[in-house]
């Protein structure tokens, strides 16, 4: 005879006291700085970039993304700060009360233009519309360095079914490394390797992705600003000449796989899904997905076979 079983205790204990609330954050002190002669107040800890955006001043950025730690490596966002010997990166320099900043001085325009010259003369920017728009805006002339200027040209790496890597388009913005690392995925499948002009994004000893720690979350593709990382579907369609963004629809939906509730933006062309992204400002994903949400949609086309 077994003991009479006790009533099961609830799996989630009921709190004995009122449920603790997260205390509301103390309002941040506002500080005032001057940008191009205009005064603007921003919360303490805000960057110069946030202040310029508040004023509606267009500051170019390439390696910056709201969801990642600023690495200030591309230097296209530099601004002139009075009292500073060098220009400073708007994306990471914190605003300090009384700062006087200039975003359109000769020095700023020259450095931005040269950064774009440097990138466009060494990297294939054909699938980087933002960068090309900046080049137009700042009058970049990458051809001034001649046809024999050293480049990072190389063959694309296609070693799996889901996405490809074309490092001839890589501007080394570090975003993919950050997304693969502590800023999102904590997988650490890739790192910057080498030094100087031959610095590049790489797995250990450049092993193919299927042998590496990659989990195919595709969060690196989500943050890549130049198309160096691309869905295989997009790459194949581009190669076949059938990639046409004007014919694409974007539909926001919720990922069907698990209960987390990630928001998907489904990009479709001619009724076929061609890629999936997630909005950066979504509270659940912040732009990040897993392999299923990012790539697990081929079944939607399987009706044709039956």
């Amino acid at each position: 005879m077994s003991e009479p079983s006790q009533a099961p205790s609830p799996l989630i204990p009921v709190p004995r006291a009122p449920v603790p609330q997260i205390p509301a954050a103390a309002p941040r002190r506002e500080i005032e700085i001057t940008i191009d002669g205009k005064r603007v107040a921003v919360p303490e800890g805000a960057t110069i970039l946030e202040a310029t955006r508040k004023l509606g001043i267009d500051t170019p950025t390439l390696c910056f993304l709201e969801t990642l730690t600023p690495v200030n490596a591309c230097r296209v966002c530099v601004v002139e700060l009075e009292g500073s010997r060098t220009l400073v990166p708007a994306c990471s320099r914190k605003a300090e009360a009384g700062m006087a900043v200039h975003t359109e001085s000769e020095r700023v325009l020259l450095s931005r233009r040269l950064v774009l010259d440097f990138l466009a003369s060494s990297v294939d920017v054909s699938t980087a519309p933002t960068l090309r728009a900046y080049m137009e805006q700042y009058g970049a002339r990458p051809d001034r360095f001649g046809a024999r200027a050293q480049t990072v040209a190389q063959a694309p790496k296609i070693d799996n079914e889901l996405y490809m890597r074309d490092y001839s388009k890589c501007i080394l913005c570090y975003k993919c490394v950050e997304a693969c690392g502590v800023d999102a995925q904590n997988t650490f499948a890739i790192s910057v390797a080498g030094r100087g002009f031959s610095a590049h994004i790489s797995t250990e000893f450049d092993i193919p992705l299927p042998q590496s720690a990659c989990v195919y979350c595709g969060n690196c593709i989500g943050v890549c600003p130049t198309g160096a990382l691309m869905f295989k579907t997009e790459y194949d369609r581009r190669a076949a000449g059938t990639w046409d963004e004007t014919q694409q629809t974007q539909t926001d939906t919720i990922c069907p796989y698990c209960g987390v509730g990630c928001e998907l933006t489904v990009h479709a062309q001619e009724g076929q899904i061609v890629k999936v992204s997630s909005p950066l400002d979504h509270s659940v994903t912040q732009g990040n997905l897993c392999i299923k949400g990012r790539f697990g949609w081929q079944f939607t086309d399987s009706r044709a076979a039956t």
Partner: protein
Amino acid sequence: MDLHLTAAAASAEEQAAIDALLGEPESSWDGGARQIERDGRAVFGGGTARSRRHLLLPVLHAIQERIGWISPGALNYASVRLNVAPAEVHGVASFYGMFSLSPRPPVTAHVCDDIACMTRGAGALCAELEHKLGPAGSPSEGGQTIWQRSACLGLCERAPAALISAAGTTARERVVAPAATENLISTMQDAVNGRLPAEPDTLSTKLSVPQAGQAQLRLLRRAGQVDPSSIEDYLQRGGYEALRRSFELGAERVIQEVIDSKLLGRGGAAFPTGKKWEAVHLQRHLGYPHYVICNADESEPGTFKDRIVMEGDPFAVLEGMTIAGFAVGAQKGYVYVRGEYPLATERLNHAIRAARAQKLLGQDILGRGLRFDVELRRGAGAYICGEETALLNSIEGYRGEPRNKPPFPTQSGLFHLPTVVNNVETLINIPEIILGGGAAYARIGKGNSAGYRLFCVSGHVVRPGVYETPYGPTIRNVIDMAGGVGGTGRLQAVLLGGAAGSFVSPMELDTPLTFEGTRAIGATLGSGVVLLFDDSTDLQQVLLRIAAFFRDETCGQCVPCRVGSVRQEEVLQRLVRRQTIGSVAEERNTLQEIAQAMRDASICGLGQTASGAILSAMNRWSLFS
């Protein structure tokens, strides 16, 4: 962390090299054999395992020194022992010039072909080596040796210079300077046959410090006089008196004396040392550990003063660091020595052990309750790691890429804690200030350039070496001190401050070598380099070498420096070969614009100064126009 490793396994020898440094693994979690009863029931890892990442650079050194290269298997084992993802270990290992990630002969000769050695026959030496051993980078002696061209090895007073490293169970290094084809090849053969002597160098201090023994010397007064391996000898010559005096003064007074002394950092950036110390000292109430770092990663072409101080008077460096530790409330110091300085490394390591044995480092220094210890870290062939924030990343086990400033190391330094970073020469000034008083020290020298200064005189000069003088003498005085112009005897140009400095013409020799004096002619003192070129030198080739140096040494993090250093070299080559795109004036304009973008928009001092010397020469001599 769940590491994903390839199947490549480390050989027994590779494992032994790493275990000799880290000890045996505790469990299968950090690379040991699997013991299911133990390992299956507990997790050995987490924060404790990750907190050993700062040992990554020493681990990579251990593999390189034992095996001669870092294999995928060894990299996997390093990864699992330190719980760092293999892609990251690879990223760090591939950053440093001294590590090879493909099989390499065990004996490597690094032959300097940089600007100082260029003036003393490095070109002819390399040409002969090419003839006898084949082109640089090709194995010789049946695959046992290889020779490579190298940037400045910091042996400029004995140019042309070479450094031979031999991997093996007892790894050995040997400085060959001055180097000639015969002694270089025979030393390489000795290395293959395991016949290298234990001492990496036969230093004749009299050659490196021509003033040795002169009564007026302060910073160099022990160089060549004291036995660098004997702490007793150091103590007998006034060693550690300044530390005792510091205890009497107390930390606040020590810092005040350093502030009063107007001592400016001698590494090149010339920041007031006292201000750094005060900034860290003032954060003691926060209760975080503080650190003192001695930046001994001297790699500026033409600079060798710190090497000679470390080789000739290593205890002085430790005493300076200990006083700094006492003043700013740090219990731990690191001395980061350039990887290409084997003798300095050995002497400092010995000095650290001797100081610990005499209770001059450790838990209770001089019985005064001061806790301070010093750990030596070796660089691995990266000029950029002399930049203080890159140095911090390097010690922490990350790629030696500079951090954006602010925050400065005094606020967020090593392990993101308050840190003082001082150059070797800066630190050996500290005992002078403590014993003589800050105000008295400030009166030595001229204007705001207070105190003593070491100058690295090399190139076409009669007696190259390190010279000490109070601030004030002109360039001409320093050249005279070194016996006058060598080579053809007719001076063409002087490079002040190294590759990151600027050229001056023979018309400017009456410029005082002070911060103000050099600034007035648009030059810089930098790290104290005075490098002479006679009129037989092809300055265009010197400029090309400088451009190649920065192209090789840029870390690649920021666009202006990564691409700008390459474009700068390309424009220069076109100008030298007269194959310009458009007119010469257009190319000069392109060069000016590249320079301005690098100076204005680069993250750190490397990119900001990478064009200085080239532009200064172009403007002074109207080159290419």
